[in-house]
């Protein structure tokens, strides 16, 4: 099938269309507005629902409503907008309805800037707002992955009745690459909506969707169910890519755009005779901890590279548990670390662990 050149944001939007998204509710924000703009054109022409909400708070609660009604639904935003959705995430999480969220991260904190960043890693993987839950978080490293993971997000959200988040950064949203756009899936018909959905209590008991459990015991039951679900997801859905790890002395761990930058670092390092490998998490939650622990027992040192102050770093350290030294290199404010700055870090680490 012929490749087409797609911009990341448009590609994510079109992937949602192909995945059978029935509705999109969102609010403009750079650097992901092209997602909304693409869907503003596509969904209505396909007779599906596009609505520009008055805010991100409204967006996420519209998503919540549409999800309760059993529709495949999505919203997208960038860092500040995602912060505004935290309460909604928590309600959706507790109600166990499926929803797809795209966060094209920008430089923060605050209004920050519109340059690429990975500053929202913690916010994405450690929680869905308040309370004990977190979404499935998929971190594409190129546009083909962005497409495939957007579609996967819809499937995982449905399968586990949870939030699936595509966590990208501004550069991925705006770059172009040749990709294969999958064929259009049929949209689910109203009568095919899930049995738990709010479709009118015709010939059955009413369906109730709530996140309120006044009795502690009930609330704990719900939490135990949610935790069991998270364990199940952790067991089934961990995904990652490895590059030249077979014989690696040193391991790079990086996700998203920096992850692909590190692919170049691996090549250049090996050209210089450094036996470097790369593990690029595709799911940052669930995190490939077990595999990293294995590798940690084999390599002499690990360098984590991120576009933030060191967030995934904690998950790597939790996996490594002291088995080998873990170092960090990061850039912030929207700067993408380039191979020529990462390489010296590797050399330093190499010197350190060799000596």
């Amino acid at each position, binding site marked *: 099938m012929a*490749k087409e*050149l797609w911009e990341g944001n448009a590609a994510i939007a079109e992937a949602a269309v192909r995945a059978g998204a029935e509705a999109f509710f969102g609010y403009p924000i750079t650097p992901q507005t092209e997602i909304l703009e693409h869907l503003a054109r596509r969904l209505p022409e396909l007779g599906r629902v596009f609505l520009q909400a008055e805010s991100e708070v409204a967006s996420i609660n519209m998503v919540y409503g549409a999800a309760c009604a059993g529709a495949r639904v999505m919203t997208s935003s960038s860092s500040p907008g995602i912060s505004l959705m935290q309460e909604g995430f928590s309600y959706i999480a507790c109600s166990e309805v499926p929803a797809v969220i795209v966060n094209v991260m920008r430089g923060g904190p605050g209004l920050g800037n519109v340059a690429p960043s990975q500053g929202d890693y913690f916010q994405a993987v450690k929680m869905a707002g308040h309370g004990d839950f977190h979404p499935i978080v998929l971190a594409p490293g190129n546009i083909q992955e962005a497409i495939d993971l957007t579609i996967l997000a819809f499937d995982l959200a449905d399968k586990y009745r949870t939030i699936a988040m595509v966590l990208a950064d501004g*550069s991925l949203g*705006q*770059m*172009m*690459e*040749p990709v294969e756009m999958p064929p259009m899936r049929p949209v689910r018909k109203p009568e095919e909506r899930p049995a738990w959905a709010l479709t009118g209590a015709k010939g059955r008991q009413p369906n109730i969707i709530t996140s309120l459990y006044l009795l502690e015991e009930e609330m704990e039951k719900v939490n135990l169910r949610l935790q069991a679900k998270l364990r199940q997801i952790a067991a089934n859905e961990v995904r990652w890519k490895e590059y030249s790890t077979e014989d690696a002395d040193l391991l790079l761990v990086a996700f998203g*755009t920096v992850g*692909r*930058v*590190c*692919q*170049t*670092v*691996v*090549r250049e390092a090996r050209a210089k005779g450094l036996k470097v490998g790369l593990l690029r998490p595709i799911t940052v939650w669930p995190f490939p901890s077990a595999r990293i622990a294995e590798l940690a027992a084999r390599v002499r040192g690990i360098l984590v590279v991120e576009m933030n102050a060191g967030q995934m770093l904690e998950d790597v350290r939790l996996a490594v548990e002291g088995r080998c030294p873990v170092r960090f290199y990061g850039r912030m404010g929207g700067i*993408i670390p*380039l*191979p*020529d700055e990462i390489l010296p870090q590797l050399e330093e680490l190499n010197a350190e662990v060799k000596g």
Partner: protein
Amino acid sequence: MQEEIIISGFGGQGTLFAGQVLAYAAMDAGLHVTWIPSYGPEMRGGKARCTVIISDQEIGSPLVRRPSAAIVMNIPSFEAFEPMLKPGGVLVVNQSLVPNRSQRDDIRVLYVPATELATEMGNVRLANMICLGALAKALGILPLEALEQALDNHLAERHRQWLPLNKQALRKGAEFAL
């Protein structure tokens, strides 16, 4: 084979589009390619540049500090990239707007009076295609036909009437790389 190309100028000079034409041509030629833009804060005008990487293997970093080729359409761009170009690299300078001369002897520099030529051709906006033609010819990784094909296949409807002129511009630019 891997070429890392930066096309840089003011907004409105068509640097991003020139990069896309290159990317389309590379894609149609079955090569790996990435196109990544970067803008200034201004709504309009201000810097507009893109990095295009073309390779015969999977591309890692979509950005480079030291490009193997560059088109500079204004002075700030010349100052930014002329020194950074890799030895053996190709630099296309829009002479009409950039008086500077390169002192480097380890790169190939093409001085093209693109804006003037474009104005002669009847549309100042053709300058980007002229520079692109020169660059493509000099790099030689893609035949001009490939770029023309890319224009045929991907030039937006509303610009179709400019197709012939765009192709002419490519060829005119190519002449500077002979």
